[in-house]
């Protein structure tokens, strides 16, 4: 068996993930690049007598890395060892993609060029001559379509061919005047023992002419640096004069552009212009109608989330209740029975009930992204976001925040400017994540008429977003003076989403959620149950048992039993903890049970629901008649429920999100600020809302 290590490189959205998914017999591992939280996808497969390992690098527009993710790809290309580069390009925008290809070819590496999405070009009557292009660039070229699984096997064949081929010919050269300077400077570099190959030296020189700071750092420590530096200055000066341009970087960029253009001219028959995207754009980003349409889409999404998501809720609720009752009868009575049927099953059930809501919300966000509408929304909102000191691209992490805050923090990496990134991350928590959805759905169902439920939910999400923007503005004014980063973003063409990819994402999401419900949430529920059932107070129990035995009527008995349960709960660990923290939440109308539920939400927001389920069930002797919703109605008034919603909207996200933030933001001052301010803000706003509602007579 021979081992081939390959890296897959390409601009964003060229379909690298789709190709990886289309490879047959490949095993996919998802991990992180060393030291950073950028997702690293790696596939391994065996073909003939080869063990092939392909690392998929984050999308990179050019070697002049701009975002932190691009930097990861660049560092990998420069520092790691690999045998062959698989450069994936998008056939629709071949010319632009070839610029990166040309930058890679400067290294004269073993490389194959995969032209993906050829189906789209051919459908529109275009054509690409792979043989000719291959001759011109001196590397194998594969025409592929991940969507139609075309050419995917060829990629592996070509990869092996290229790996085994001994010679690598350089076919692409720049203008003579540039090549002369490259030669001159390469000679200096080659004096250093660090450079053994002329190819490497040439690559370094080109990057130096382009003022690449990463490369500069590497040569800076070499003994030949002084000589090199002086000659580099002279070379750049000569080039600038010769070409009448501002910088050598401009000259080389123009050269590459010209070469890419001529390659496309020689090898590609351009398709008749497809104008579907233009036509859709005419409507969706219309100067006047664009924003209302966008708001309508978002409103529709939350309506659907609530309306369709709540259809199976009653059914699921009944199923879990029946299941718990059934278990209660077949398991031997005792603590084990109680912990399972009163603790775990209802708690896990109360959370799983919301799986349909969460899946619909995720489906919506995925659709926004896959169809290409997300970029349009960023375009539409850029002017608006700019007023709040953010930029259009911040929209993407912000919307992902409605799904889950953890990936949203990572999505903030597309923002280059550290201040922009930090501001975005500091307000991301106000974008209500889907884990909070169960809490809202529960409270809305309990305290609002069903006809309005979708609107209330939409209002909660919108208020969260608006609050986020206001806080961003304040942060921008008070803490981060200065201009936000410029906004330059590709608008991908509209695509019909791949149903398979959507299905996979949803399945993955559902699996993760069920796993979380079965492990983390079940565990938290178990702890809450234990804390709420122990210790016992034997004296109290004896006292009440006597009273109950003496009771005359059935009503009296039930009342006494309830009293005992409530007293027991107060005596338990959780009752004591609750009583301790109750003063903090008392001004908001929270009793100690709500206080405990709120705190438990820091573990995971769904736990608020399961905790409420446990705590309000314990005080209730007559278990069959009332659902959690009814119990909440009996125990909490309207203004308290609203105060709880406000708290959930604003206070710290779950521990997983917090640790992601800590990982992404190294400064202690910001970590501390991030940990404290949302909680203070949440309390203050909840307090105001509670008192305003009280004044209004609720």
């Amino acid at each position: 068996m021979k081992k081939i290590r390959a890296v897959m490189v390409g601009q964003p959205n060229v379909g690298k993930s789709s190709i990886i998914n289309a490879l047959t017999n490949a095993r996919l591992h998802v991990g992180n690049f060393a030291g950073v939280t950028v997702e690293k996808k790696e596939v391994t497969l065996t073909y003939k007598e080869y063990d092939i390992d392909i690392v998929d690098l984050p999308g990179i527009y050019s070697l002049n890395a701009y975002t932190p993710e691009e930097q990861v790809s660049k560092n990998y290309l420069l520092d790691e060892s690999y045998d062959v580069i698989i450069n994936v390009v998008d056939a629709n925008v071949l010319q632009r993609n070839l610029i990166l290809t040309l930058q890679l070819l400067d290294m004269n590496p073993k490389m194959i060029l995969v032209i993906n999405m050829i189906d789209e070009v051919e459908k529109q009557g275009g054509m690409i001559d792979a043989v000719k292009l291959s001759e011109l660039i001196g590397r194998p070229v594969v025409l592929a379509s991940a969507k139609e699984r075309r050419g995917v096997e060829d990629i592996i064949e070509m990869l092996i061919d290229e790996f085994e081929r001994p010679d690598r010919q350089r076919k692409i050269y720049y203008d003579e005047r540039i090549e002369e300077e490259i030669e001159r400077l390469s000679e200096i570099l080659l004096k250093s023992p660090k450079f053994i190959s002329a190819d490497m030296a040439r690559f370094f020189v080109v990057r130096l002419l382009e003022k690449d700071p990463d490369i500069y750092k590497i040569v800076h420590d070499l003994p030949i640096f002084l000589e090199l530096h002086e000659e580099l200055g002279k070379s750049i000066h000569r080039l600038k004069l010769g070409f009448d341009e501002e910088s050598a970087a401009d000259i080389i960029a123009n050269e590459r552009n010209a070469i890419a253009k001529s390659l496309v001219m020689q090898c590609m028959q351009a398709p008749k212009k497809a104008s579907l995207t233009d036509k859709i754009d005419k409507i969706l980003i219309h100067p006047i109608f664009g924003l209302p349409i966008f708001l309508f889409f978002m409103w529709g999404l939350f309506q659907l989330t609530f309306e369709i998501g709540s259809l199976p809720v009653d059914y699921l609720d009944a199923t879990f209740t029946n299941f718990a009752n059934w278990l209660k009868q077949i398991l031997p009575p005792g603590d084990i029975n109680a912990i399972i049927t009163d603790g775990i099953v209802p708690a896990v059930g109360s959370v799983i009930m919301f799986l349909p809501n969460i899946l619909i919300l995720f489906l919506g966000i995925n659709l926004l992204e896959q169809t290409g509408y997300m970029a349009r929304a960023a375009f539409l909102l850029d002017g608006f976001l700019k007023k709040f000191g953010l930029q259009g691209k911040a929209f993407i992490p912000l919307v992902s925040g409605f799904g889950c805050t953890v990936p949203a923090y990572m999505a903030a990496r597309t923002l280059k400017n550290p201040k922009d990134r930090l501001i975005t991350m500091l307000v991301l928590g106000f974008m209500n994540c889907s884990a909070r959805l169960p809490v809202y759905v529960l409270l809305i169902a309990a305290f609002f008429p069903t006809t309005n439920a979708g609107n209330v939910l939409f209002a909660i999400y919108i208020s969260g977003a608006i609050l986020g923007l206001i806080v961003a503005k304040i942060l921008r004014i008070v803490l981060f003076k200065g201009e936000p980063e410029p906004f330059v973003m590709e608008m991908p063409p509209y695509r019909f989403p791949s149903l398979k990819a959507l299905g996979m994402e949803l399945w993955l999401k559902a699996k993760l959620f069920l796993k979380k419900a079965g492990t983390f949430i079940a565990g938290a529920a178990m702890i809450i149950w234990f804390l709420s059932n122990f210790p016992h107070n034997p004296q109290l129990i004896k006292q009440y048992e006597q009273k109950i035995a003496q009771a005359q009527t059935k009503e009296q008995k039930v009342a006494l039993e309830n009293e005992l349960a409530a007293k027991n709960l107060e005596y338990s660990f959780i009752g004591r903890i609750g009583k301790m923290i109750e003063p903090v939440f008392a001004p908001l109308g929270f009793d100690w049970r709500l206080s405990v539920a709120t705190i438990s939400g820091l573990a995971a927001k769904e736990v608020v629901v399961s905790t409420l389920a446990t705590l309000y069930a314990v005080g209730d002797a007559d278990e069959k008649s009332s659902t959690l919703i009814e119990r909440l109605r009996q125990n909490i008034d309207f203004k308290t429920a609203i105060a709880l919603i406000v708290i959930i909207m604003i206070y710290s996200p779950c521990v997983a999100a917090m640790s992601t933030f800590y990982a992404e933001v190294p400064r202690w001052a910001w970590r501390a600020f991030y940990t404290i301010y949302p909680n203070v803000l949440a309390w203050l706003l909840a307090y105001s809302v509670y008192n305003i509602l009280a004044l209004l007579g609720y």
Partner: protein
Amino acid sequence: MKLSQMHIGQSGIIRKVRANEPIKGRLFAMGITKGNRITLLDHTLKKETFEVDVEGTRVALRKEEADAIEVEDEKD
């Protein structure tokens, strides 16, 4: 003329990109380079954000960047 002065649907050849690094490199990577053909597809109501097509790629950019891109009308 500047890109920001074009009207929707107008196209031209890019003559000069006046931005500083690193934004200039980013514009290059998107295909906004001297000699390439650019078409203004759309802008927001207050002409704050622009959508252009350069050689088949659609790019969104702000007024600040649109001001920095010098375009030559094709008819001249």
